[in-house]
């Protein structure tokens, strides 16, 4: 018989261990209390269960259903609609290359191709060491910094194939990586907890990378008669220059 996987989780799902369940329940109640209607907490709770296991498991679906008095079918229907909810185990670092039109044309396609070869994985696949999941993503609202790569949803602006390869090498080697806009990287699970509505408690995370990025200041600097800011500096390990500044 052909194995046709529809990705529908087998039920009944096992529950979390008691201590995990108690901790997540406490978090979930805090999230639910923020909304006039409890079901509004479903998207944050799905982020919360991802922060526990790295993807939305059948146990996570059961947990959300029980917390919100929904059926597991209702929760599954929602979790499968949104692209940020992973349906299988994935890496600590989700590397997303923007291949929507503008970034693709500016080099996103080339970056994505080279990363696939460099890592030996295809779209939505994870390196054997479980470190990096590679995927192509849609427009991430940073077109003035194209081509853009996101790692765990932090911005890596003005990338080149060389800088992107150096970036994933650093991630795999466990070196500290800092985005051009955003905080020093934490793991995918830790990122999911912020998305669930629990502020990043790390010292310096909010102010990391400073104010607006260089491109964001282009008009303001012109208005003031100042010289344009250099485009975003590359990773220390990146060798290529960003797009040239024209005068």
């Amino acid at each position, binding site marked *: 018989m052909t194995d046709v996987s529809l990705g529908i989780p087998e039920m009944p799902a096992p529950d979390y261990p008691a201590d995990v369940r108690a901790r997540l329940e406490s978090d979930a109640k805090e999230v639910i209390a923020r909304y006039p209607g409890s079901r509004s907490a*479903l998207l944050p709770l799905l982020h919360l269960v991802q922060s526990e296991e790295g993807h939305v498991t059948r146990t996570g679906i059961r947990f959300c259903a029980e917390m919100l008095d929904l059926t597991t079918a209702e929760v599954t229907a929602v979790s499968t609609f*949104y692209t940020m909810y992973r349906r299988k185990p994935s890496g600590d670092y989700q590397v997303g290359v923007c291949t929507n039109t503008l970034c693709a044309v500016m080099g996103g396609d080339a970056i994505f191709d080279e990363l696939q070869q460099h890592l030996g994985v295809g779209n939505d696949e994870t390196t054997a060491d479980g470190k990096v999941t590679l995927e192509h993503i849609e427009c991430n609202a940073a077109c003035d910094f194209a081509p853009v790569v996101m790692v765990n949803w932090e911005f890596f602006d003005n990338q080149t194939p060389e800088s992107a390869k150096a970036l994933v090498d650093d991630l795999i080697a466990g070196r500290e990586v800092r985005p051009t806009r955003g905080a020093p990287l934490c793991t995918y699970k830790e990122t999911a907890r912020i998305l669930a509505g629990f502020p990043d408690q790390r010292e310096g995370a909010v102010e990391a990378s400073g104010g607006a990025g260089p491109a964001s200041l282009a008009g303001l600097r012109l208005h003031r008669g100042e010289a344009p800011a250099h485009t975003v500096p590359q990773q220390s390990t990146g060798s290529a220059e960003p797009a040239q500044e024209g005068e």
Partner: protein
Amino acid sequence: MTVEPAEKLLAPVLSAFWDDPRSWTLETYRRHDGYRALTKAFAMAPDDVIAYVKDSGLRGRGGAGFPTGMKWQFIPQGDGKPHYLVVNADESEPGTCKDIPLLFANPHALIEGIVIACYAIRSNHAFIYLRGETVPVLRRLHEAVREAYAAGYLGADIQGSGFDLELTVHAGAGAYICGEETALLDSLEGRRGQPRLRPPFPAVEGLYACPTVVNNVESIASVPAILQRGKEWFKSMGSEKSPGFTLYSLSGHVARPGQYEAPLGITLRQLLDMGGGMRPGHRLKFWTPGGSSTPMFTDEHLDVPLDYEGVGAAGSMLGTKALQCFDETTCVVRAVTRWTEFYAHESCGKCTPCREGTYWLVQLMRDIEAGKGSPGDLDKLNDIADNINGKSFCALGDGAAAPIFSSLKYFRAEYEEHIERKGCPFDPARSTAWADKYRTEAHA
């Protein structure tokens, strides 16, 4: 033609202190007159605040350009139901990149605008629906909301006014369609983000079937400046029907991509002239005035005033003022194929014309790009796009049709060339951000 100096053409308001080292903090915001408009608003009757914003002529900055004050006025008062303000921070339209930098650098402008708007429409609970894929912005919103509560700008009895407001920051989970206001409301209610049939409009039955205003980030963030500096000041910029300032986002093959805050009605030629033009040695081929859903323009449209009427009269829409500029190295068929793939991926599946139509558009576009198209395909493309356009609940379908229609209008010959020579005549390597650098080195 003489080039007007940038200081005359630009008008940084929301972006005025983005270069402050800690621009996102409450301290910086207050140093730049932050939360003073709120005091003015509290001294007015709520209905007067609505009337003031309406008189200012502020129009929605999320794409449709609907008058903001009028949206507020539609909220029935004295109905005994809770009212809600939901800020649409789901910025996902390809090319659009203004709200994310605004929130990263100056989140308190939005929060002050939210308090004023809620006071006006008599809402005690507001939500910011931020797309989830921008964690650095989420971090700063969490912090800004925390600061605002601690300083008494949110919570109970704000600044002794007797007005209470709770503000919840809500992270989405990756779905372009949630930028459509009724899909956003379904998503905020914990459902799949699918658009609702209207009427009833959100002003009557929105979040939890209660009266709800859904406004774009930039619209709400513009309100404090209008109250603080006056509606006459606001109307002194732009045109009668499109007054005020706005963020233009320049991207692509331009010398200096970035955010340019200017009075409505500036032209792409003016923006390019002050920003150093296209990248050296290249010329503009096509561009979008307001994201991929707005019909594309060419170098014939450099002098179109970028306001709601001007762009409309030239056959497109101002949209989100996302000026994606592509030079002559770019294959228009490739660009449109990629946008079409995006719409097919993001179609929520509710309406048949959009769900099925975008699927078939992708098949045709991929074939044409790969040199496997036939001459009849162009009419077929037009026909399918026509069967999507205006025939679905929301504007995503119209957005999918726009690049097809407009590219066929201006670049039909390029489509035909793909079909005739059975392949793409362009080299994608020449379009990359680093193409000219490497070429220069090779010739050095």
